[in-house]
């Protein structure tokens, strides 16, 4: 196992460069986990609409109750009962919704009448629709209580406001989707960058060393079968790549802790990362066969890892990339890796199971094609050398 032992001695010799890439990767990953805020998360943050209330019913008990309810759930701006000023306020968006409580509002309500409120809103405003829903909810609840509770008015109002204000506890039986989820999906996307860099650098270094004509010649003089050398090199590459993969998966657990473990996504993400590790190993092998200079190797490692990462959505989400870039990136394995991660991270991953499997298979096909190309080039060179 001389060649196998030598493999890791050489890896040890270039550990400096490898550590640089891993530190860059982990720094970005930790930064992402601390500061990544999902757009989906902000969409669901509770917001308050800016409204104005014009009470023409002289503070009747229902008007008062409704006003208090709206004040609790919205930002109320004071406006005079002046139609011109109301129009101005809507035009300049100082309010989005004006509720006008008409004279006789309470008595009309208690008599069971409809069309109780007048409203003026900014056209097509979602806030206005939201406030409409609040008012309907309040008045609907009050009418229900009035018909069936038999309570005095004050108690009835307390009951309605209390029930409308109650927090609803929601228990998710499925996955918990929050910014942590997006964080570790992003982390796994970043693995593409790190894996490409460390594979290209590590495995191609070994290949360059062993494919150096003088070393190759010297090894062939020894009583060691070429097949044995190849098997030992393959074994070394598998162990090296697997160690890199395991390291990155373990780091994800260290960084994201229970949130990634309880998400149920870790196995799928790890399998996808393993598929990409195989692709990266193949890329490392072919780069090692094609190049001869260490300077070129460093440049290739950067071009491949950064280029593929930028084009395939490792750093920037794929939905922000132009259609032209995406069309081109489909011929790169990292695109399918990121796509698979997105499917795993989506709320309906089970519905896209086939697409997920297809994305992983496409990566493996890439790896297989690169392996075959590597063997072909290697054979071609060997024949030429003789």
């Amino acid at each position: 196992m001389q060649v196998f032992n030598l493999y890791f001695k050489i890896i040890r010799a270039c550990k400096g460069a490898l550590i640089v890439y891993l530190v860059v990767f982990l720094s970005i990953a930790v930064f992402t986990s601390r500061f990544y805020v999902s757009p989906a998360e902000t969409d669901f943050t509770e917001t308050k609409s800016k409204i104005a209330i014009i009470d023409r019913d002289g503070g009747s008990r229902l008007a008062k109750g409704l006003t208090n309810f709206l004040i609790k759930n919205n930002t109320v701006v004071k406006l005079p009962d002046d139609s011109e000023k109301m129009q101005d306020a809507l035009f300049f968006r100082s309010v989005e919704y004006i509720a006008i409580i008409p004279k006789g509002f309470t008595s009309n309500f208690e008599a069971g009448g409809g069309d109780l409120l007048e409203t003026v809103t900014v056209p097509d405003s979602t806030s206005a629709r939201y406030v409409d829903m609040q008012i309907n909810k309040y008045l609907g609840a009050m009418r229900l209580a009035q018909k069936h509770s038999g309570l005095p008015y004050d108690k009835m109002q307390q009951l309605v406001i209390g029930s409308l204000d109650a927090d609803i506890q929601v228990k998710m039986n499925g996955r918990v989707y929050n910014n942590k989820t997006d964080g570790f999906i992003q982390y796994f996307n970043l693995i593409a960058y790190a894996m490409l860099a460390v594979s290209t650098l590590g495995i191609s270094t070994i290949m360059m060393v062993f494919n150096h004509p003088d070393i190759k010649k010297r090894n062939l003089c020894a009583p060691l079968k070429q097949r044995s050398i190849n098997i030992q090199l393959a074994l070394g590459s598998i162990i090296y790549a697997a160690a890199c993969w395991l390291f990155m998966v373990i780091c994800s657990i260290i960084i994201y802790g229970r949130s990634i473990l309880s998400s149920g996504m870790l196995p799928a993400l790890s399998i996808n990362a393993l598929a990409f590790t195989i692709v990266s190993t193949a890329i490392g092998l072919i780069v090692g066969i094609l190049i001869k200079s260490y300077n070129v190797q460093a440049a290739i490692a950067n071009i491949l890892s950064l280029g593929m990462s930028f084009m395939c959505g490792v750093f920037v989400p794929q939905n922000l990339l132009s259609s032209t870039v995406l069309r081109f990136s489909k011929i790169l394995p990292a695109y399918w890796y990121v796509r698979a991660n997105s499917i795993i991270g989506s709320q309906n991953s089970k519905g896209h199971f086939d697409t997920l499997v297809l994305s992983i298979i496409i990566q493996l096909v890439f790896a297989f094609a690169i392996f075959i190309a590597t063997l072909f080039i290697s054979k071609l060179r060997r024949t030429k050398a003789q």
Partner: protein
Amino acid sequence: MIIKVQNLVKRYGDLLALDHFNLEIEKGEVFGLLGPNGSGKTTAINCMLSLLKFDKGTIHIFDRNMSPDAYDIKRDIGVVMQNVAVFNELTVLENIQYFCGLYITDKTKRNQLVDEAIDFVGLGDYKKFYPKKLSGGLLRRLNIACGIAHKPKLIFFDEPTVAVDPQSRNNILQGILKLNREGATIVYTSHYMEEVEQICSRIAIIDKGKTLATGTKDELKAMVKAGEKITVELYSDNDLNGALIEKISNLPHVTDVSLNGNLLTVRCTGGRHNLIRVLDTLKDSGLTFGRVYSEPPTLNDVFLEITGKELRD
């Protein structure tokens, strides 16, 4: 017979690198392959080591047919390539351990052999050095240690002294002789005839892929007409006329006379009093001269005689 090569033909496209090349090397010899650059020395060695496929011919080493998978033969062969073939990522010690480990699986025996190889090449103080930190001479010594650590019976040295300083060159040559004394058969290729003359017991002169002549250095030198080359540095005020040159040419054993500036060169076949006769003739003609050199024939003369060109052309 340690090596027997018969009618070896190797082509690189239209170029005939080895043209029915023949070679026989006996056990215990230091055999020199002498030829100019591009004469086919390295190609011949690469074929013998099964690093290159050849078109025709047979190669037997240790009386067995040599082939890429003749691992039992390879086990007893050591190779010191023309280019230093070591791992820059490993230390001196690790490099020797690796190459020795390709032949010797037993760790205790291997460690002992590695220590011996380090002592042999005198790299004891550089065990933990990386190759990039070594000078050219030390690097060559490391290359040798990697090739001979497993104590092979047959060692190929392919131009091991190229770009090496004279002191290191001498160390390398002495080391090769020591290996031979310890029982190894040596195949040594070089285009430095002085080195080949110095250490080789038998020599094959090759050119254009052919073995032109084989023998000991004395046997080879006996093949040439020129037994002695006499060079006389004449003083500039001398008038060396055509008649005198003819007179010298007519002396016994003289084969050629030439004048280049103030240097008179007289080539003679073997004879006891050539130098005295030439000097007497010059003295009788009243010519004055300074330095006088008399040189026996060199391998370059042999090569010149056989091919009509200098070995260094």
